[in-house]
């Protein structure tokens, strides 16, 4: 599992200070390009479907995802009353998968959002202020960067113990350094542009300069990077649950389900693989959308 080194991923020309179409602001142009890209639209559609079904789960008329049954275990797909069969404790798979989406998506998105806020703030500060502050912040990040992300997540979770809150905390900690690095890198780049110097020369306060001049140019690349982290987060969260370090049973969560269904691979292999299919689809969609966002923002024509 990998959180790609930011500078290598984004290349040298991080900030493209060129807007797309005449008379339009930058973000409007980006939105327009996104709306025109079929791949992005399809992925967005799939994700919306997933999220919607996850959110609306209690009202979809599904079976109880917690209700076990010793008799009706490991029913195959298409069984009467259980469209996707039942798991090793007799619980309805369809319900488990949809309810599982709630936790899996939540565990994927929340750490990234938190890391975005914290890491972004730290990185932008380090990038704009520079000097000793920059060094201090980035050195601390370096310590975390000394660990491969999976190792860090597992060590942290392993030490803190399983459970949803602990997992959220450990994943957030894992994602803060890369977001911070990207933010610092982009902010330093923008800071060097002449218009920032001109803003400084106008005597405006630092916060004003950052708000008006820096944020608008910096948020784009940071956001693109953060969205690319969501799929990593989902897989990492699922992985932690798979190891028993994440969500605790009997909560439905795709990674946890993959673990508990392992015993079923000899009996009902397709069933055992189903939760992973969900992870796969979600991950692909987020990755494609992140790529789409990057293309939309990488405006040259």
């Amino acid at each position, binding site marked *: *599992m990998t959180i790609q080194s930011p500078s290598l991923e984004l290349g040298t020309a991080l900030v493209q200070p060129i807007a797309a179409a005449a008379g339009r602001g930058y973000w409007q142009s980006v939105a327009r390009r996104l709306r025109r890209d079929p791949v992005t639209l399809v992925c967005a559609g799939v994700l919306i479907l997933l999220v919607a079904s996850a959110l609306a789960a209690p009202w979809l008329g599904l079976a109880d995802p917690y209700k076990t049954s010793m008799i009706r275990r490991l029913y195959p797909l298409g069984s009467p009353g259980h469209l996707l069969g039942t798991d090793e404790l007799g619980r309805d798979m369809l319900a488990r998968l949809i309810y599982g989406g709630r936790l899996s998506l939540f565990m994927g998105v929340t750490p990234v959002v938190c890391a975005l806020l914290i890491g972004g703030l730290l990185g932008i500060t380090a990038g704009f202020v520079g000097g000793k502050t920059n060094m201090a912040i980035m050195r601390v990040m370096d*310590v975390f960067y000394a660990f491969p992300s*999976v190792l860090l997540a597992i*060590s942290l979770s*392993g030490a803190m113990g399983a459970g949803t809150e602990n997992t959220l905390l450990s994943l957030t900690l894992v994602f803060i350094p890369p977001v911070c690095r990207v933010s610092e890198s982009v902010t330093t780049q923008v800071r060097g542009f002449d218009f920032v110097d001109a803003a400084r020369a106008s005597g405006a306060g630092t916060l004003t300069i950052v708000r008006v001049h820096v944020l608008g140019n910096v948020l784009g690349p940071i956001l693109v990077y953060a969205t690319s982290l969501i799929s990593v987060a989902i897989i990492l969260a*699922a*992985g932690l649950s798979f*190891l028993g370090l994440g969500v605790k049973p009997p909560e439905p969560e795709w990674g946890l389900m993959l673990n508990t269904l392992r015993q079923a691979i000899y009996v009902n292999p397709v069933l055992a693989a189903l939760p992973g299919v969900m992870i796969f689809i979600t*991950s692909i969609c987020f990755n494609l959308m992140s790529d789409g966002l990057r293309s939309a923002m990488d405006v040259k024509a």
Partner: protein
Amino acid sequence: MFLYALRRLIYLVPVAFGVSLLVFALVHLAPGDPISAIVPPDAPKEVVDKLKEYYGFDKPLPVQYFRWLGVTLTGDFGTSIGTGRPVASEVASAFGNTIILAIAATTLAFTLAVILGTAAAYAKSRIVDRLVTLISLVGVSVPHFWLAIVLVIIFAVELGALPPMGMGPENSTGWRLDSAHLAHMVLPTIALSVIPLGVVTRTVRSTIKETLSMEFVTALQAKGMSDAKILRHVLKNAAPTCLAVMGLQAGNLIGGSILIETVFAWPGTGFLLNSAIFRRDLPILQGTTLVLAGFFMLLNLTVDVIQTMVDPRIKRG
């Protein structure tokens, strides 16, 4: 050149300190007393106190840290609570097994990635490019531990062609280069290689494409240089970035192999870490994390130094 490596090494020292601090703190992040991992909850107080004194848990934290650091630096990583054997030797043998898998996976992944990436960058037909992009997308998006399970289902359960777990035939320890052991390696290697394959393919493709669009390539073509020779130039140009990414992936692979090793019960550092976590065998947890993190740092340093050697644009020293 050497000075640069030396400087980077020196800069590593404070980071290494931080890492050791973090690893040390892991133990104390754990809920409850570290002692509770060793003794049953109803142990008499004298025993608990004696053990506390023995392990040094009664001293203030900074003292504990430096004692631990001092001892660790001499190579003594403590004793495993579960097996009673020295942590260092457990970690060492496990590390060896992980490396075997890592070498196989990286060889497979990087070779394929370079071929696919170059082909995609050069391909005239959009289909080839699209296909390779799809492959790398799948590689990056697939949950590799799930893929491992799927592979087991297909090849072990359904086809019965390959063994579903373990490093060698029943209960064998150690690794030998023979067909049985190789058979055990196939599935884990494939599962482990997908992510590096995806990432490196993407990187190779984009760096080569970028290089091809540079003016010097047009100049070489105008000079009448053969395509093969141009390819050499292009590869040289793309090499630094690609090597750096490969190094990073290799590092991630070694540090992050726990999931695959768990699926296949491969006795590597990941598997060791997993069992240590569940037995709450904190010395092993600390020792393994420390070794893996240290290895990762050194690997990154090596990659940086190599990149400086290969890419003359990067300022030296």
